[in-house]
Structure formats: C-alpha cells, structure tokens
C-alpha cells in the first residue's frame, strides 16, 4: 500500500511535468541518480550520491520516530521541527561552553542535552494537552515558530554569535563531534574522491538504534501497550486502568527526546555550529510524511526516511542535469501525503472512488491518530 502511494505520486507528478512541457523521464532519471546513485549519465559519483542520501536520511529516521510514536497514542506531533531545533540549540550551547572536555564526557553531554531540550519542548505541548486539553497540533505549530525565532535571536547579534555579523555560532569543541565512518581526510582517495566528501557519520547507527528502541518500546514494554491503548480509545484505556494523562505527557517527552537527538546529531555529526540554515530547516515536517509512509513500524520508517532522503538528494541532480526545478520534490512529497492520507489506491481498488458507499471503516493504514480529534475536543481526561 505505501508503494502504491509512492507510485501514485510519481504518476501524478509525471502528469504535471508533461502538462508543463517537461520530460518526466529526464526528471525521474535525475532523481534516481541523485538519490540512489543509479543510472547516472553525467559523471555523477554513485558512492557520493548514496552517501549524501544517507546523510539526509539520518535526521529523518530520528524525527520520523518522534512523529510515529505519538501517532500510536493518538497524538499528532507536528512539532518535531521545533523539538529538533531545541535539541540543536542545546547541543551547540553545551558544545561551546564545555569545548575543552574530552569526547568521552562531552559527546554524551551534548547528545543527552539535545534530547533533554527536545523533550522539554515537546513536554510543553504534552502537559497542555493532558491538563487543559489544548490541541497538540496547534501548540506544536506555535512551538515550532518560537524555536525558529529563538535561533535567529541567538545567532544574529545574540549570545551565541561567533563574531558580529557572522550569523552563526561558535563551533562546538572537538570532543562534541561525532566521527565520520571514513576518515575525514582530503588526501586519502576512496571511490575516486577524497575520503572526506563522504560525510556519513556514526549518527547513522544512533538513528538506527533509535528506530529499534522505538519498536521495542512500542511492542515489548507495558508502556508501549499503554500508548497503543490510549491511541485506540482513551475511554477504554481509562477503564483498563491506564493513566491517559501520564501516558500523553510521557509519550510527548519521549518523542521530543528523539527529535532533540536528531538536532544534536546534526550539529554534532555534520555542522559543528548553529547557522541560519536551521531557521528554514524542514526536516521535522518531512518527518510527518516519513512516519505516515512508514506505517509506524521501525523498518518502515527507516525505508521511508531513505526515500525522502533520496528525493532530497536527487532534486539537486535533477535540476542541474535535466533543468527541472528541484521544487518538484516538494510537489511529489505533497502528493505522497495526499495519497497515503486519502488511501486513493485502496479506494480505486475497491472500485468505489467516492465516499458515500464506502464501508464505514477508517483505512487500516492510517495511524489511530486519524480519529483523535473528537477526544481532543472533549474535556480533558481524568478530572482528578
């Protein structure tokens, strides 16, 4: 079914290309080359393209998990972006302040600091949801913007700015940095290019571990059971003795920690300083598509993150090779979202394109969050 959604998006995308006078084959072969290093015709280095895709994939996995976990509890975390930014800020601040500490101390500090900041950011939304019933979609959108402006405040003339007019922070200490898989060496040649161009870093394993933790937490722990119970029905969960309020807050805290980790990994593994690029970053929004497409399973999320990482990486190649604006990638991403959410493929397969006659069940692929809004609107749970 997710494959169907992706296929649907590419077919409609091809139609848009044809209508606007572009050749879909050129566009998609550019995406394929830039994304997966396959079928390159204009001298691209497949290993490099794949390496770039993986670099883009790493934060998508971790933030994807941060969206998928609350989904299971019937919560829609649109705030992965803001939580990630909070994590990036904390990681940078700690990495600068304690720049001289050795790796063994500093690296855990920046990563855990990032997780704590992300958890705090998400926790605000969780507490507001659990206590006064404020809808987490709205609160997390607001918190995203607050985080964005916080970054501008900090690095444009603010306390973290390197020197006046640089619009970026000091670099974090060497001990706060995640190692790359290949030595960051300009003289060593790997696959015909200097080893340092392959930026894949240890964060990949942390991200994969995060996905594994997500699966374990959700399916192998009693807390995971509580999350799923709350997601299925808050009422039933309450009868079963689950504290809905506690579950909501804890779920958001954990989700925020995942997002915060993503931000910390980006700073620690790739950027080493906070720059204005985080102001216009969209990883946390892409994560929503990743979580939906991955059907909330760890493997699914990793594969979906890989797809979106590949699209991101492929867009630039498509533009320089085929002359087609890389904004097409956004269009494709939106189409994938429409398709998953509306389950077009399922509707077509059932031969019932329009709603009235469709059997009254929600598409099974949708996370339970689809039905959450009624309870969101209801008075807050557990009046005690």
């Amino acid at each position, binding site marked *: 079914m997710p494959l169907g959604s992706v296929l649907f998006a590419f077919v409609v995308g091809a139609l848009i290309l044809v209508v606007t006078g572009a050749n879909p084959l050129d566009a998609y072969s550019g995406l394929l080359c830039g994304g997966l290093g396959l079928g390159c015709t*204009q*001298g*691209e*280095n497949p290993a*490099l*393209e794949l390496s*770039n895709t993986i*670099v*883009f994939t790493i934060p998508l996995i971790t933030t994807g998990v941060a969206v998928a976990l609350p989904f299971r509890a019937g919560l829609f975390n649109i705030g992965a972006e803001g939580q990630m930014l909070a994590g990036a800020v904390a990681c940078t601040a700690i990495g600068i302040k304690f720049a001289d500490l050795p790796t063994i101390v500093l690296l855990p500090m920046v990563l855990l600091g990032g997780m704590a900041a992300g958890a705090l950011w998400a926790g605000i939304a969780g507490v507001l949801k659990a206590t006064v019933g404020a809808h987490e979609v709205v609160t997390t959108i607001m918190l995203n913007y607050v985080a964005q402006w916080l970054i501008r405040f900090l690095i*444009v*003339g603010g306390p973290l700015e*390197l*020197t006046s*007019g*640089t*619009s*970026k922070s*000091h*670099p974090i200490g060497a001990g706060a940095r995640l190692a790359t898989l290949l030595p960051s060496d*300009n003289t060593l040649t790997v696959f*015909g*290019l*200097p080893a*340092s*161009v392959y*930026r894949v870093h240890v964060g990949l394993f942390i991200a994969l571990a995060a996905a594994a933790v997500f699966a374990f937490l959700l399916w192998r722990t009693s807390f995971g059971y509580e999350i799923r119970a709350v997601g299925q029905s808050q009422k039933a969960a309450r009868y079963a003795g689950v504290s809905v309020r506690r579950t909501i807050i804890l779920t958001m805290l954990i989700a925020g920690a995942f997002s915060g980790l993503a931000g910390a990994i980006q700073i620690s593994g*790739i950027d*080493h*300083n906070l*720059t*204005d*690029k*985080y102001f*216009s*970053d*969209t990883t946390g929004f892409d994560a929503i598509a990743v979580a939906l497409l991955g059907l909330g399973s760890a493997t699914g999320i990793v594969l979906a993150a890989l797809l979106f990482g590949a699209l*991101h*990486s492929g*867009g*630039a*190649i498509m*533009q*320089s*090779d085929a002359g087609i*604006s*890389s*904004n097409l*990638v956004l269009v494709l991403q939106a189409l994938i979202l429409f398709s998953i959410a509306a389950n077009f493929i399922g509707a077509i397969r059932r031969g019932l394109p329009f709603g009235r006659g469709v059997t009254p069940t929600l598409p099974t692929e949708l996370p339970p969050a689809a039905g959450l809004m009624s309870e969101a609107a209801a008075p807050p749970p557990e009046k005690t």
Partner: protein
Amino acid sequence: MGHKRLRFLGVVAAAMVFSLACGGTSGGGTPAKTYKIGLVTDIGGLNDKSFNHLADVGLEKAKTDFKVQGDVKESKSGDDYIPNLTDFAQKKYDLVIGVGFLMQEAVGTVSGQFPNIHFAIIDGAGTDSKGNDLKHPNVVSLYFKEQDAGAMVGAMAGWLEKNGKAKKNQHTIGAVGGISIPPVNHYIAGYKWAAKMEDPMIHVLVGYSNNFTDPAKCSGVAQSQINQGADVLFQVAGGCGLGVLQSAGKAGVYSVGVDADQKDADPSVIASALKKVDVATYTAIQNVVNNQFQGGALTFSIANEGAGYSVDNFDLPADLKTELDKIQSQIKSGALTPPADIPA
C-alpha cells in the same frame, strides 16, 4: 518579458565595456574546449529578485559570449550547500560558483577537498568553522563595496533634501534593511554617510523588516518612515524591499532600488544602488575561460565599475549630476572612502 530581458542585458553589456578592459584577448583565438560552469544558489533561489538572480544573469551572459555550459543548482536548504558544490567539483567543472556569504564554510570545506577545481564565492571567502579565511589558492572571493553604491544614492538623497528638491523636504530620509547583517549594513553605511555629507541637518532613519521575502513586512517599515517625514526611501531587503518601493509610490515620495536596476519595479524609483553580481560572476567565468584564474579576492567597487548607481525614473538636475560625478571620481581616486559600518 522578452524586451525587458534584453534591456537588462543591455545594461549589463554597457557595464562590461567599462569594467572589463583588463579582460584582454577574450575574442582572440577560438577555444576548442567547452567550459563547464556550475552555479549554486543559496536558499533564496533563482527568483529571489536579488543576488542569486543576478549571478544567474551573469552566467547567462557568459553562455552567450563564450563556449560555456552553465548548470545551476538551487539549494533548498542549508544542508544542500556542500552536496551541491561537491557534485559540480567532482564532475570536474571548470568553475564552481557559490552565491552568498551563508556558503562560506561549505566553500572552504569543498575547495580543500578538490584543490584542482576552481571556486568562486560571492560576498565571502572559503572559511573554516571559526570564520577564518582558509586562503585556498583555488578559491576566488568576489567581494563588493556595497558602501560605494550606497554612498552614491545617499549623496543623491542628501542633495535633494538640502536643496529642497525632494517631496516633503523635512531633512529626513529612510533606509529599510532586511536583517542586520554585513552585506545589508554596508549599503546603509554608505547611504547614511554620504547623505550626512551632503546635508548635515539630515536625519536618516534605519529600520529592518526582519525578512527578505515578504514585501508586506517591508511595506510596513517604509510606511512608518514615511509617517516620520522621510521622503527618500532606500530598500536593502531583496524581494521584501519591493514593498518599500511600492509604499513610496503610493505615498508620493521617492524610493531607491538595490542590487539591480529596479526602475521597472515602481515609478517612484529615482535611482538604484548597483551591486553588479552579474559582472562579478561574468568576470570570474571570463578569467577561467581566458586561463587567468587567480586565487584570492576580487573586490568590486566604484573604482572598477563593479558597484555604482543608476538614475531611474527621474530627471537628474545638472547641479546634482555634477555633484554626483565629483563624488564618484573622489571615491574612485580614493579621496573619499565610504565607511563599511553604519556611522552614528
């Protein structure tokens, strides 16, 4: 649309005649090789109505003049700078151009990995994470003295105020910047400095829209300055600043465009401060084609016609013309040096 394009190229071409006398034998000999030029925009993209767009104009011009294959990558986020630069570099492009000072560190990194590939960067250098110029010999920095261009339009505004030739003549003018960052503040520094030089009584309002893409935000700041009595408004905010020009037009006061000649943006535009990113891009390409690439820095200023001003929807009084020519030649000779930081 077509004729506008041509007219624009005409302006560019005119600038070339003046500025590229040093170019040497660009027409001489027929280079058998097709030069591959890669342009990487910053997140503003090609339609930013500012320097990314101008860089592309320079590339297009080079494509018509030389045997050049020009390819563009628009960066969708800051994460794209390194992959985009690296892809061009590993394809052995003859010149890889990064647009904008946000790309400094990325250019520093990639130029170190590909010492045999030539890089150019607009508004910056190839730096390390502490902002130090790595001085890689394969990188040419293309800097601009925005303050030179700002000074010319500032002198114009100051003269109009002093001689009562503006609309309200309350000795008040304004400047609307995007964000308070160096490339913006250099313009404003020259503008304020020169306006004060012309009219010591002048009051220069400096505001920021905190934005580069939303004209309504700049329009609000402009309106506030107009309410304070400003009757010449200088926009230094890219696409956002179009709102300044528009607001000035509605209020019946003068406005000044930035980067490119913005005479078409609104009838209120009496002049534009030019930062010839197109000329710089073209020059960098031309140097590569002529095998004259040199690492280091090229600074584009009034002295080499890489910065300047255009008189737009306005009949320049002869006295003012004389005054501007005088200031321009003094800046050119070094007798006058507009400051890079906004004077008090």
